[in-house]
């Protein structure tokens, strides 16, 4: 019964919106409804986050009942060794796995790009496995592998697991840039006397740099956000932020963790804004090119 209510609640406005949103762009109502539609989606997207941020300033223990404004949970956060340790682990694992998989993935992508068609197709299909496969299956299968190889669960196993699901993202973001690359420039560099290594570093790498950067960022994000694979490959001692939060959801979450995510969220927005301030120049360069 509740299902039907849900479906009606979601489906009816959506159906009305569909008709309006896909209308002819000449009609004024289309424009208005498009803005309304997008706003609605944004409300849906940001409502929980708004709630989360607001309740990080709650003076009570609850993440759902407002009791008054305080910065108590931010203070608590500074003194909480457990969460800080988890945060540190998350950062170490995310950064190291992202850096390693970016370097390894970029080098491999260049190699794969110059492979013959048949092995190239096979290896690209294998590369797609962790992206297409469900997290839980990647997790349990790695756990089985560690059991067989006798690898202890801990930092090493966690980082290896993260590398193995990050590398495909790096390869898949570098690959398109390699395809767009003008191969004549590389040949020209060789003709002008550059060694293949020099040509690789000075000619190919700068051209695929945007792909490398986006691959790194993607790897970092995936690694920070990962929960399921970490759950199976981290063992009892090492705990990432996700695992810490998961164990908290069983005991009940305090606004402390809200405070932490608010801080992370603000930092991310700040970084984005700063990089956006630099962007106009990059845009001009693009237009000139």
């Amino acid at each position, binding site marked *: 019964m509740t299902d039907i209510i*849900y479906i009606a609640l979601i489906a009816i406005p959506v159906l009305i919106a569909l008709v309006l949103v896909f209308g002819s762009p000449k009609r004024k109502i289309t424009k208005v409804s498009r803005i309304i539609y997008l706003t609605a989606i944004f409300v849906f997207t940001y409502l929980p986050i708004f709630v989360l941020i607001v309740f990080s300033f709650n003076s009570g223990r609850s993440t759902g009942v407002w009791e008054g404004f305080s910065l108590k949970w931010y203070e608590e956060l500074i003194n909480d060794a457990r969460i800080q340790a988890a945060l540190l682990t998350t950062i170490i694992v995310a950064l190291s796995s992202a850096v390693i998989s970016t370097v390894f993935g970029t080098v491999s992508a260049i190699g794969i790009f110059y492979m013959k068609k048949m092995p190239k197709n096979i290896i*690209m299909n294998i590369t797609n496995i962790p992206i297409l496969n469900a997290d839980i299956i990647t997790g349990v299968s790695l756990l089985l592998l560690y059991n067989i190889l006798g690898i202890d669960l801990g930092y090493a196993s966690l980082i290896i697991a993260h590398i193995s699901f990050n590398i495909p993202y790096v390869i898949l973001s570098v690959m398109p840039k390699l395809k767009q690359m003008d191969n004549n420039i590389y040949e020209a560099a060789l003709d002008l006397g550059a060694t293949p290594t020099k040509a690789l570093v000075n000619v190919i790498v700068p051209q695929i740099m945007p792909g490398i950067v986006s691959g790194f960022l993607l790897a970092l994000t995936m690694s920070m956000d990962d929960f399921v694979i970490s759950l199976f490959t981290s063992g009892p001692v090492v705990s990432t932020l996700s695992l810490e939060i998961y164990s908290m959801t069983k005991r009940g979450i305090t606004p402390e963790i809200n405070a932490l995510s608010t801080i992370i969220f603000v930092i991310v927005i700040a970084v984005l804004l700063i990089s956006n301030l630099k962007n106009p120049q990059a845009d001009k360069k693009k237009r000139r090119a």
Partner: protein
Amino acid sequence: MKPFPKFRLKRSVFAYPYVVFAIIFLVSPLVLVIFYSLTREIDNYSVNKSSVNSPEVIIDNLDFIGYEEDPVLSQVGTYYYDGETLTVINYRERHPETYRIFFENEKISLIEEYEGDTLIDADLKDVKFLNRLKGVYFTIDNFVKFFNTGDYMKVFLRSLYIAFMSTLFCLIIGFPTAYVLSKMKERTRNIVSVMFLLPMWINFLLRTYAWRTLIEKTGIINTVLESVGLPAQNLMYTQGAVILVMVYDFLPFMILPIYNTLIKIDRSVIEASYDLGANHYRTLFRVIFPLALPGISSGVTMTFVPAITAFAISKIMGGTQCATIGETIEREFSTDMWFGSAMSVIIMVLMLASMFLIAGGDNDGENIGGGLL
């Protein structure tokens, strides 16, 4: 002019380390899952019971020093040894269970809690490396157990339903969003698409939990409803709640691939359609929609696959009544790897089948995952 240099470093060499890495860490784990799903452990129980002289002696003989380092052991949980009995606490589930345990002095000890006796020493020497696979035999019992047990099938069908509904809603909500986005000016749409990605920087468990505080019985939505004079709704612990949060969590994975294909559509194709006399709707359904299909198919895969195996969401939002197959796999895996593997294999087969259906067979190996990037 010098002749073109004949000797050159074969650049594909760069990929060789990755090939080795991929075989070890991407392919062999899946092979292992399939292997485990088709095997079971030989039951040494009755055989070895006779070899036990008296429990006390065996307890004294056991070397407990190394257990914390043991990978198999440490995945199981914590241990209490009070001089008489050994209790195993599963650290994920927090309740005592019995387990098969490997000890570091190269000796398997089978530990079961049953009346009176606590330990049975199987005393198999040389338990190193691949020898851990020694005591297994091939069988399809794991699959038979899955398909013959009504509870597992019920959970499986429920997960299918939840995943299907979430994917459907994601598509219904996501396609128009991507379409509206793609119609915006370049600068605006870049900013807006980043805004869709921003929430992903907040841990998804927290975002899920935030929904819980919204729709709880004493939650914010109910408080608002009551203050307006409407009756409070019981939204938590229903399939609807699970679907709602799944739609919320996976929506970006649906929007972005579709958006990426939509902005790549050549404008001249659309203009040609208008020039040839098609009206707005005809162009939308006969030109834009078919051209967006690759994006839609990768969006559907990127939503459906995590939705069918997600277990944290259903655990937080659905409680015990809405257990999904992901939860079952996680639970079974800590007690019975063989059966857990069989369930994983079933999920993998299902996903492969759905991918082939969605991709329509023309999978060239580079389109699917790339849609998001």
